[in-house]
C-alpha cells in the first residue's frame, strides 16, 4: 500500500464533505448531492477494507504510519501529526468505513437542507477515523473534540422530538468527557515529556513510577480522570443519561454513527490509554481496581437491560440496550488481571471484539428502525404490529439483528460475550460474581429483544386504534439500495460469528503487543 493512505482515509471524507457543502453552489453538483455522498463513502469503505486486509499480521505493530514533525515543534511543548493503526485500531477503522456508507444509504430520504446534512455526515466520518488512527495524544484529542460540532448540528437540525435539548445534552456530556481527557493527557505530557503513546512505553516507567510520574498529580488520579472521561463517552452507568435522549431524537444515520462508532471511541480510549498506556506506566492501578470495575460493569449490564424492557419507543429501546452492552466492555476490561496472572487475553480480546460486533449489530438495528419509521411514521411499539407481513425483508433482517444482539451462537454477538465471560469468570471472587450477574443480562436481552420483535413485527397486523392502521396496507418493503446496506452489515455479523478470526486475529495481535511493550 502506498504511504499516506491512512491520512487519505482521514481527510478524504472531510474534504469531500466540504466539497459537497461549498461546491454544491453549482447546479450540476446540487442535483447529485446524494450520488456524490454515496460515491465518496463507497470509495472510503472500499479503501478501509483494502487497508484492513493489507495489515501485515506477521510483523504486527503500528503500520501505515504517517508522520509530520512540525505540527507544534517546540522544545517544551512538542506535538506531532502521527497516525498509524495496529491490531486494536484497524478493525475499528474498518467499522467506521462500513458504517459510514450505511449511514449515507440510511439518509437517502433526507429532503431538508441536504448539502449541509451530507457535509456534516462526511466530516463526522473523517474525524472519527482520525480518532481511531491518531497515535499522538494531542492529535487524538483534536479529533475527539472536533467530532462534536458535526454531531451537534446533525442532531439539532435534522433530529425529531426534543432534538435541541438532546443535542445540547450530548454536547455538554461529550465536552465534559473531553475535559477529563484533556486534563489527563496534559498531566501525562508533563510527567513524561511526550504525547506519543508508544514512546511512553519505552520510558520504562514501571518501578520508578513513585518518583518520576507523580510530579503533577498521583498516577492513580490520572488513571481515574481518564476512566471517567471514557466512561461518559461509553457510556457507563451512572453517566449514561445523555445516550437515550441523543439516540431517540437523532436522525437514523446519526444513530447509526453514534451507536456504531462514537460509543466505540469510549471503549477504544479505555483500551488504548487505561489498559495499554497505563500498562507501561503503572500496571498495579488497573490491577487493584479491576474487581470494582467488574462490578460497575455488571451493574451497568443489568441496569441497562432492566430499563430496556420497559421502553416503548423502538429507538430508545435499542439505545438502552446499548448501555447494557457497553457494560460488557467494562466487565471485559476488568479481566486485565488475567493477563498478568495467567498470560491469556480472552477477556480483553472479547472487549475489543464487542466494540466491533456491537457496532455492526446496533448499526443494523438502527438502520432497520430508521427504515421502519420512514414507513410507519411512529416508533411507538404498541402502535406497531404485524409489520413482517407487509415488509418481510425488513422483518427478516430485524430478527437477525435481534438474535445477534441477544447473543445467538453463529452470530457475532455470541463470540464477544462468551470471550468476555470466560475471561472474567476464571478469575474467581468478585469477577466471577460480576460475571454471573452479567450472564443474567443476556437472559434479559433475550427477553426484551424477542418481546420487541414479537410486538412490532409479528402478529396479524396493527390494532385498529393505531395511527398506522390507515397506511398499513400501503407499507412497502425495502428497495434495492436499502437492501444493499442491510446485506453489508448482515454479512459482517454472520462472517464474524462463524469465523471470528477475521477480526480476533488482529485484536489479539493488538492486545498481545500491549503486554509485550
Amino acid at each position, binding site marked *: 500500500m502506498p504511504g499516506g493512505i491512512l491520512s487519505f482515509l482521514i481527510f478524504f471524507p472531510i474534504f469531500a464533505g466540504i466539497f459537497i457543502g461549498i461546491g454544491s453552489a453549482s447546479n450540476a453538483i446540487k442535483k447529485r448531492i446524494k450520488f456524490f455522498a454515496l460515491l465518496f463513502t463507497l470509495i472510503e469503505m472500499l479503501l478501509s477494507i483494502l487497508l484492513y486486509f493489507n495489515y501485515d499480521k506477521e510483523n504486527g505493530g503500528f503500520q501505515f504510519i504517517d508522520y509530520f514533525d512540525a505540527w507544534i515543534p517546540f522544545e517544551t*511543548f512538542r506535538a506531532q501529526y502521527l497516525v498509524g493503526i495496529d491490531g486494536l485500531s484497524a478493525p475499528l477503522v474498518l467499522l467506521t468505513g462500513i458504517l459510514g456508507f450505511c449511514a449515507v444509504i440510511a439518509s437517502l430520504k433526507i429532503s431538508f437542507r441536504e448539502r449541509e446534512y451530507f457535509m456534516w455526515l462526511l466530516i463526522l466520518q473523517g474525524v472519527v477515523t482520525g480518532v481511531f488512527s491518531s497515535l499522538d495524544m494531542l492529535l487524538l484529542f483534536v479529533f475527539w473534540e472536533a467530532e462534536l460540532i458535526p454531531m451537534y448540528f446533525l442532531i439539532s437540525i435534522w433530529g425529531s422530538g426534543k432534538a435541541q435539548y438532546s443535542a445540547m445534552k450530548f*454536547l455538554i456530556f461529550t465536552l465534559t468527557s473531553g475535559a477529563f481527557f484533556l486534563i489527563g493527557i496534559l*498531566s501525562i505530557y508533563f510527567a513524561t515529556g511526550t504525547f506519543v503513546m508508544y514512546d511512553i512505553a519505552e520510558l520504562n516507567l514501571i518501578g520508578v513510577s513513585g518518583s518520576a510520574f507523580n510530579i503533577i498529580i498521583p498516577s492513580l488520579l490520572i488513571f481515574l480522570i481518564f476512566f471517567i472521561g471514557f466512561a461518559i463517552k461509553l457510556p457507563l452507568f451512572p453517566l449514561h443519561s445523555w445516550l437515550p435522549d441523543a439516540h431517540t431524537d437523532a436522525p437514523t444515520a446519526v444513530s447509526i454513527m453514534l451507536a456504531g462508532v462514537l460509543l466505540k471511541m469510549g471503549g477504544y480510549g479505555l483500551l488504548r490509554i487505561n489498559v495499554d498506556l497505563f500498562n507501561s506506566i503503572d500496571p498495579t492501578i488497573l490491577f487493584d481496581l479491576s474487581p470494582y470495575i467488574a462490578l460497575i460493569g455488571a451493574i451497568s449490564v443489568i441496569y441497562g437491560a432492566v430499563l430496556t424492557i420497559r421502553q416503548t419507543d423502538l429507538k430508545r429501546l435499542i439505545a438502552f440496550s446499548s448501555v447494557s452492552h457497553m457494560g460488557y466492555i467494562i466487565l471485559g476490561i476488568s479481566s486485565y488481571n488475567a493477563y498478568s496472572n495467567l498470560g491469556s487475553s480472552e477477556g480483553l480480546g472479547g472487549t475489543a471484539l464487542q466494540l466491533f460486533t456491537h457496532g455492526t449489530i446496533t448499526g443494523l438495528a438502527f438502520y432497520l428502525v430508521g427504515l421502519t419509521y420512514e414507513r410507519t411514521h411512529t416508533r411507538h411499539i404498541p402502535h406497531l404490529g404485524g409489520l413482517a407481513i407487509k415488509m418481510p425483508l425488513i422483518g427478516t433482517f430485524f430478527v437477525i439483528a435481534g438474535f445477534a444482539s441477544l447473543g445467538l451462537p453463529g452470530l457475532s454477538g455470541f463470540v464477544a460475550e462468551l470471550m468476555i465471560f470466560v475471561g472474567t469468570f476464571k478469575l474467581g471472587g468478585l469477577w466471577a460474581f460480576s460475571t454471573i450477574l452479567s450472564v443474567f443480562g443476556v437472559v434479559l436481552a433475550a427477553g426484551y429483544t424477542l418481546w420487541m420483535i414479537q410486538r412490532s413485527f409479528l402478529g396479524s397486523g396493527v390494532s385498529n386504534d393505531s395511527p398506522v392502521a390507515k397506511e398499513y396496507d400501503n407499507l412497502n418493503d425495502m428497495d434495492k439500495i436499502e437492501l444493499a446496506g442491510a446485506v453489508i452489515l448482515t454479512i459482517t455479523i454472520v462472517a464474524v460469528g462463524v469465523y471470528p478470526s477475521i477480526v480476533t486475529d488482529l485484536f489479539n495481535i493488538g492486545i498481545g503487543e500491549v503486554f509485550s511493550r
Partner: protein
Amino acid sequence: MISLNEILLITPELFIVGFSLIILLSDLIFGSKFRSSDIASLGILASLIITILLFSGVIKINDISSISILNIISVDKYSLLLKIVVLLLSLSISTVGKEVISDTLKLRSEFWTLFMISLAGMMMLTSVTEMITAWVALELTSLPLIGMLSLNKKRYSLEISFKYLILSATSSAIILMGISQLYGLSGSTFFNDIMPLKDAFGGKFIFEDSTQLLIIFSLILIISGFSFKIASFPFFTWVPDVYQGSPSLVTLYLSVVSKIAGFSILIRFLFESVNIEVYSNISLFIAIISSISMFYGNIMALRQNDLKRLFAYSTIAHAGYILIGIASLQVNDASFSGINSTVFYLIAYGITNLTAFLSMISLSRYVDSYNMLDFKGIGSAQRYQSIIFSISLISLLGIPATVGFMGKAFIFSGAISNDYFWLASFGIINSLISAYYYMKVIKIIFVEKSDKPFPEITFPRLKVITTIGAILIIVLGLAPVALLSIVESALNTII
C-alpha cells in the same frame, strides 16, 4: 539628552498622535469632505508599516547602544509585536468605522481624534519600563475613552461614561498607591530596580519580614488596579453596562485593543520587576482573581439574552483564562513557561474576539437589535456572515481546529507544568460552562427558523475583515507554529 535616533524609535506613536491632529484639522478645513475614519485608517496603516519594518529589522537604527529611551521606553521585539497586534486590530476597527458607526454618534472627527490619542497611549503601554510613565500611559488610554463613551446621543451614554470615569479614577488611584509604596521601599521607579530583595535577601523569601509583606501588598494593589483595564476581578462590574450602552465601535475597542494593551503592560511589569520568590506568592493571588473572573463571567453569561452583555461576561471570563497564563508566568526549572502561551493566547483572543464582535455587529444590522432571540434563523438568510460568526464563537469556546483551542491548550499546559493543576481544572470546567451559551447562540442562528424577512444590505468592509479573521482562526488553529515561533522570537528579547 534624547538623541534624534532615539526619537526615531517612537515614530509609530508620533504618527498616531500626528494623525489625531490631522483629523481635527481636516474636519476644520475641509468639513465632511474626507471621512475621519478613513484618515485614521491611513495614519494607523502608516504607523503599522513602520512598526512592521522595525520588527522585521529592515529599518535599523544605528548609533545607539540600546533599544530603550532613557530606560523609560523600551522598543524591544516584545513591544513591537504587541504594537503590531494593537495596530492591526485598531486598523480593522477604523476600516469598518464607516459601516459600523451609528447615526446616534455625534462629532465624528472628535471621536476619531480621541480614538487616536487613546491608541497612542495603548502603544506606549506596550513598551514602558518605568512605573510613573506606565501610569501616565494608562491615563492616556483611559481619559479619551471617557470622551468616546459620552459622544453618543443615547440615554445611557452619560451614565456609563460616568461609571467608567469613577472606576477608572479609583483604579488609577489604587495603582498609584502601589507604585508609591514600591518607590518608598526601593527608591526607584524602574521595573528592573524596584524589587529591593532581588539581591539583598539572597533571593530568599521570608514571610515574617514586614518589608516583604509590604511588597506583596503593593503588588496586589497594582494588579487590582490593572484589573480595571483587563476587565477582571475585582474591577469588572462596569463591563456589562458599558458594553451594552456604548456605541459598538467603543465596545469593540474596549474589548479587543484596550484589553491587549492592559495585559501587555501587566505581563512586562510582572515579568521584569518581580523575582521568582516573590512571584510564587503573588501568583496565588493572581490564580484566585483568575478563578473568580472565570466563574463569574461564565455563570453570569448563561442567562443573558443581549449579545453585547453576553460578550461582556465572556470577556471577563477570558480575562480569567489569560490570568491563568499570568499566574504561571515565571517558572523555576526548564518546564513549560506560561509567558509564551499567555502572549499567544492574548493574540489569539484578539483575533477571535475581533472577528466575533465584527460579525455580530454585521448581523445585528439585519435585525436592528442585539437581542439574541431576534437573530433566529438568520443563518439561512445571511449564511456567510453567520458561518464566520459561528467559527469565531467555536474558537472562543475552544473546540479543536481553531486558534482558541490551541491558546487554551497552551495556557492550561503552562498552568499544569507550574503546579497549578487545580487552576487548569477550573479553566477546563469553565470552558465547559461556556459551551452552553456559545452553542446557544449558534443554535439560535442556524437551527431555529426565522419568522420575518431580513433586509437586503451588504457590508463589504465588514465582510473582508471578518473573512481574514476567520481564515486566521482556522489556519492558526491547525498550524499554531506560525504564530508561536514569532511570539517566541519576540519574547527572547525580554527573557
